[in-house]
């Protein structure tokens, strides 16, 4: 393998050196527990305060509306179960979509087994919800709309502002899973009328195992993890100080470099799409042509299967994914690709390539040169392909 080309930034990102540098002192020297009142404890507490402030700034929130968690999945679980159980006397109906991340979908399914009703909105061929269908789904028992900001597989970005305004008008809590959007799209929770928002550090060049939940002041929510008085009594557990410090730094960097990040990834994305579409036939681009994450490319190649495509690319040093990272170990075709109306065999032939800050133009050139050959080789082997 001569070259290593990582194109799986939506699965996870490498941490930036600046982030690691800020974290390092907190492992072995400034190792205190923020709940302790002595010098070590105060030093740790201050570090958490700085990080919280950076995150709040990055989303236009107040400091005391940002709560650290152990990741994006925990944030999703907390938001949905926490709202559901705290507001069940008001109603038991939740609205979501068919293309949510499993952290949202499986949580909703769990609630369905426990007395809640969930409506799963359809999406069109580009992965967009229909705001009218959303309006019609609302009943007087609806307590929560949980609707992802941007999709992790096909990159489609939903009309969050419209949804937020609708939720506000109807007096329904609005949670958005912004794990993929945060750091790739400008987000202001007030402008967009978001009540709760999940984010995760490892998707924005920060550490794994840290996330956050934005909770608008006044929102009625139960805890998911009970115990000590951390996070203003809402999320127990000794704080992951280095992780939180790293998340803060990553968020700050993301905001400082947002424009160049977007233009860099968008231009490489467009180059990759154009290059492949020109050289390969029987291929389509999944997701929305315009309203999509800057670094997201998702192809469906007919007549071949995703895993053998991934394996072949991996042998060439190219790291991609088919469907979401969480499910690429699974054998089912992605629920997102099914929801946008792909047939089973085409869904099976999907390939996600996601671009990030460290992606270089020559990486894209390499993929444009190699990928068509791989597709061709596999098609030659396929009983479905007639030349």
């Amino acid at each position: 393998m001569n070259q290593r080309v990582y194109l799986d930034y939506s699965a996870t990102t490498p941490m930036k050196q600046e982030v690691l540098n800020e974290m390092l002192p907190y492992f072995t020297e400034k190792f205190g527990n923020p709940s302790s009142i002595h010098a070590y404890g105060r030093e740790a507490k201050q570090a958490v305060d700085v990080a919280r402030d950076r995150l709040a700034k990055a989303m236009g929130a107040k400091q005391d509306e940002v709560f650290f968690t152990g990741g994006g999945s925990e944030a999703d679980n907390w938001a949905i179960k926490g709202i559901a159980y705290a507001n069940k006397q008001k109603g038991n109906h939740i609205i979501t979509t068919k293309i949510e991340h499993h952290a949202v979908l499986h949580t909703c399914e769990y609630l369905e087994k426990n007395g809640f009703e969930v409506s799963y909105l359809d999406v069109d061929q580009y992965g967009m919800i229909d705001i009218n269908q959303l309006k019609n789904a609302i009943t007087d028992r609806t307590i929560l709309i949980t609707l992802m900001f941007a999709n992790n597989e096909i990159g489609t970005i939903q009309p969050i502002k419209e949804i937020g305004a609708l939720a506000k008008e109807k007096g329904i809590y609005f949670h958005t899973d912004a794990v993929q959007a945060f750091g790739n799209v400008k987000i202001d929770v007030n402008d967009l009328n978001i009540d709760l928002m999940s984010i995760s550090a490892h998707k924005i060049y920060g550490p794994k195992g840290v996330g956050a939940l934005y909770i608008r002041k006044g929102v009625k929510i139960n805890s998911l993890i009970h115990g000590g008085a951390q996070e203003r009594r809402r999320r127990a557990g000794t704080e992951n100080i280095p992780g939180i410090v790293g998340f803060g730094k990553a968020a700050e960097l993301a905001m400082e470099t947002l424009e160049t990040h977007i233009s860099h990834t968008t231009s490489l994305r467009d180059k990759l799409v154009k290059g492949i579409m020109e050289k390969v036939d029987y291929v389509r681009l999944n997701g929305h042509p315009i309203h999509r994450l800057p670094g997201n490319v998702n192809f469906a190649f007919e007549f071949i299967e995703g895993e053998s495509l991934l394996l072949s690319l991996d042998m060439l040093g190219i790291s991609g994914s088919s469907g979401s990272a969480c499910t690429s170990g699974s054998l089912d075709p992605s629920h997102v690709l099914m929801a946008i109306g792909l047939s089973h065999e085409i869904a099976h032939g999907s390939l996600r390539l996601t671009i990030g800050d460290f992606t270089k133009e020559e990486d894209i050139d390499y993929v444009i040169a190699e990928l068509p050959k791989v597709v061709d080789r596999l098609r030659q082997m396929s009983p479905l392909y007639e030349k």
Partner: protein
Amino acid sequence: MYSEKVMDHFMNPRNVGEIENADGVGQVGNVKCGDIMKMYLKIENDIIVDVKFKTFGCGSAIATSSIATEMIKGKTVQDALKLTNKAVVEALDGLPAQKVHCSVLAEQAVKAALFDYSKKQNIVLEGLEDFNPDEDHHDHEEDHE
């Protein structure tokens, strides 16, 4: 996750292709599950003198098809009938648990081709009396909690 043997057969599959006027052709799997294996046999005097395959499927599906063709080439029909998925897995130095079913698919593809051969020859092959080429052997056995 795959052994070197699997990766070798995946990257350099043996006997890819089709045989014109094959004496037996079998296809198993289905597109919905993302795997189809098609196997072509040329049989002379009860000996499999040539075999080719085409597979739409995962890396393991391609590797098992490839090694299965190697394992039956030059064998008698009776010996080929004895090919088990277990032997295929062993020949590949193992498969991840969730990929063992791909080897079942390879075994079934061989059987389906032999069944087709027996029908064309109007003979009954021992072990294939109850064979149903359209049965779905592809069980993904998901255990979502």
